[in-house]
């Protein structure tokens, strides 16, 4: 069995992201001139403590997956710092980055596409070992079997190919591969989006179980708000390449501060029919602006139900308005951090569906 690692006793957070930007250039015209950038991620900052799970939510195309990939430097970030376990991953040399890779791993969205159809299960799980260890075949095989045990795969499956497994089992293979090198940090890039509901719970519970046993730190990217509520400790809500709100889970779900977070959370299904009947959804008008040409002011100003003049001119910064709660919105002025404690009553009502 995998040994539980004692949680590191460091005061600095394991992951520290500062002003991460990921712009994809647009070339157009006959001369393929650089005419603009798709600002998929435009100045994102957050931290994740060791052993913690940060949920990252937002609608399709808001840059969630790009953040995850840029964090592991699968993309070369345009700007910003990504400090993982004391080293700035965004600036490591190729060889140092390769040495650093075992610390950080990724679980992918589509378990079908993330496994090479021509490799057997044990070769897939063993691939990280081939890259980073000089173990004997026997030792590798033993470790592969242990990994399979720990994610709940029968050892008999070791020589089968990915197409012989169900979606949930394939995702377990992906998780076993991510665990092979004893990582500290795992980016889960919508690991449950391609699975059906009964399997989603299994996979999420497996992830939680592994976190408890191995002291893992997750960045859990998802658009399934109820699943994020289940697994995350803190949640960041992204909109058009920026973080709109970053709050502890319970606070966010009880009382979202940012108008976008509020609208997003109003879309969560309510299992209780009595409450569901009273629930009023906030329906946003219009479309998400193009990330190639975001609005001058706040990215959300084109659809915000509570838009003010200042929103159209000035981009709000992500500031701490209450203890542990960061919001990028002009509704919460920088200077009135203390005064905003008066707001809860109003926003509480708002959660019941009374839009102002």
């Amino acid at each position, binding site marked *: 069995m995998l040994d539980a690692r004692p949680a590191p006793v460091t005061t600095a957070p394991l992951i520290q992201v500062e002003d991460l930007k990921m712009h994809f250039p647009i070339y157009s015209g006959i001369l393929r001139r650089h005419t603009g950038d798709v600002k998929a991620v435009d100045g994102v900052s957050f931290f994740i403590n060791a052993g913690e799970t940060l949920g990252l939510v937002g609608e399709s195309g808001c840059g969630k997956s790009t953040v995850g*990939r840029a964090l*592991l430097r*699968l993309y070369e970030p345009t700007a910003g710092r990504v400090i993982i376990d004391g080293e700035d991953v965004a600036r490591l040399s190729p060889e140092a*980055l*390769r*040495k650093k*890779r*075992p610390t*950080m*791993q*990724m679980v*992918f*969205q*589509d378990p079908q*596409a*993330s*496994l*090479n*159809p*021509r*490799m057997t299960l044990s070769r897939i799980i063993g*691939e*990280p070992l081939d*890259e*980073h260890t000089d173990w004997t075949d026997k030792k590798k*095989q033993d470790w592969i*079997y242990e990994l399979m*045990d720990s994610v709940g795969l*029968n*050892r*008999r*499956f*070791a*020589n089968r*190919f990915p*197409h*012989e497994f169900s979606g949930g089992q394939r995702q377990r293979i*992906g998780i076993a*591969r991510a665990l092979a*090198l004893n990582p500290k940090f795992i980016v889960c890039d919508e690991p449950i989006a391609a699975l059906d509901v009964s399997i989603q719970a299994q996979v999420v519970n497996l992830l939680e179980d592994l976190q408890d046993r191995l002291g893992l730190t997750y960045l859990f990217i998802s658009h399934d708000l109820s699943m994020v509520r289940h697994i995350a400790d803190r949640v960041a809500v992204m909109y058009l390449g920026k973080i709109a709100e970053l709050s502890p889970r319970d606070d966010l779900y009880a009382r979202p501060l940012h108008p976008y977070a509020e609208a997003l959370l109003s879309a969560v299904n309510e299992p209780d029919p009595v409450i569901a009947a009273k629930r009023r959804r906030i329906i946003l008008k219009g479309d998400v602006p193009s990330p190639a040409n975001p609005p001058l002011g706040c990215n959300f100003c084109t659809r915000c139900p509570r838009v003010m003049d200042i929103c159209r001119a000035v981009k709000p910064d992500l500031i701490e308005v209450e203890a542990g709660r960061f919001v990028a919105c002009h509704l919460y002025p920088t200077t009135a951090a203390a005064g905003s404690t008066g707001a809860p009553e109003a926003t509480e009502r708002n959660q019941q569906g009374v839009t102002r």
Partner: protein
Amino acid sequence: MTDSDIGVAPPETLRAAVWGQFRKHRGAVFGLVVLVLLIVFSVLGPFVWGPEKLSVAEALKSKNLGSSFVHPMGTDQLGRDTMQRMMAAGKVSLAVGFVAMIIAIFLGTLVGVLAGYFRRLDGPLMRLTDMFLALPLIPLLLVMVMLFRDKIARNLGPEMGAFVLIVFAIGVTSWMHAARIVRGEVLALKEREYVLASRSIGATSRRVILRHILPNVVSPVMVAATLGVAEAIITESVLSFLGLGFPPDFPTWGRLLYEGLEYMQLYPERVIFPGLAISLTVLSVNYIGDGLRDALDPRIRGR
């Protein structure tokens, strides 16, 4: 764990699994048998059977004969035994076909993978491919043969020299289609999540290509390769016909075909036998490639 010893025994090896699936493909097995027969015919045939040596006067009398026990495939206009020439020709044609195909596929796959995987090489390598495609083939081969034939013949002897030159010439002028197909496939493959996963593990480009890209471009490469064999055999005969290939009295299937053309209306078997041999080779190689492609794909192998 209680079931720790269950999975430990590794089941059949990959080679056994591939052979098991290959055998189930009836066409592929048929193709393999035909190809082996053709190879046996041309390589071992001369040791088993040969016509008696004739004097010039006898040969003159025995020209343009039909099939008989003495000459199973008849004789040609100079009284040479056609079956003996078919055997000698088969050795050369098969060798040219396969070696030229291997060279072309190697070059094509190399260029295609490099162009598809490394963005910076894509432009230059694909322009090079376009350039080769735009070159008129026959004049190019003509120039190559004129320039190098004597030098190579001096070092390797006229027949071996011609063989090396022809194989090389065909190889370097027929890799372009394979390169284009492979590049397209690699462009699609390298965006797949398992390639991304491999990179997130920290695998070097070389490992990613060898482990993930190459095994997955096998299918198109296999198709290109089987077609390449046929093309190489035909191109060789064109070259020989133009006097750029092997010496005039040196038989190859392509040359026998061209020589027989003149007499086609009187003696159709002169064209039928070499034509049949070329067609059978091409067909059997095609079927073998088909079976091999299926056998190498675990998704099909499982069924």
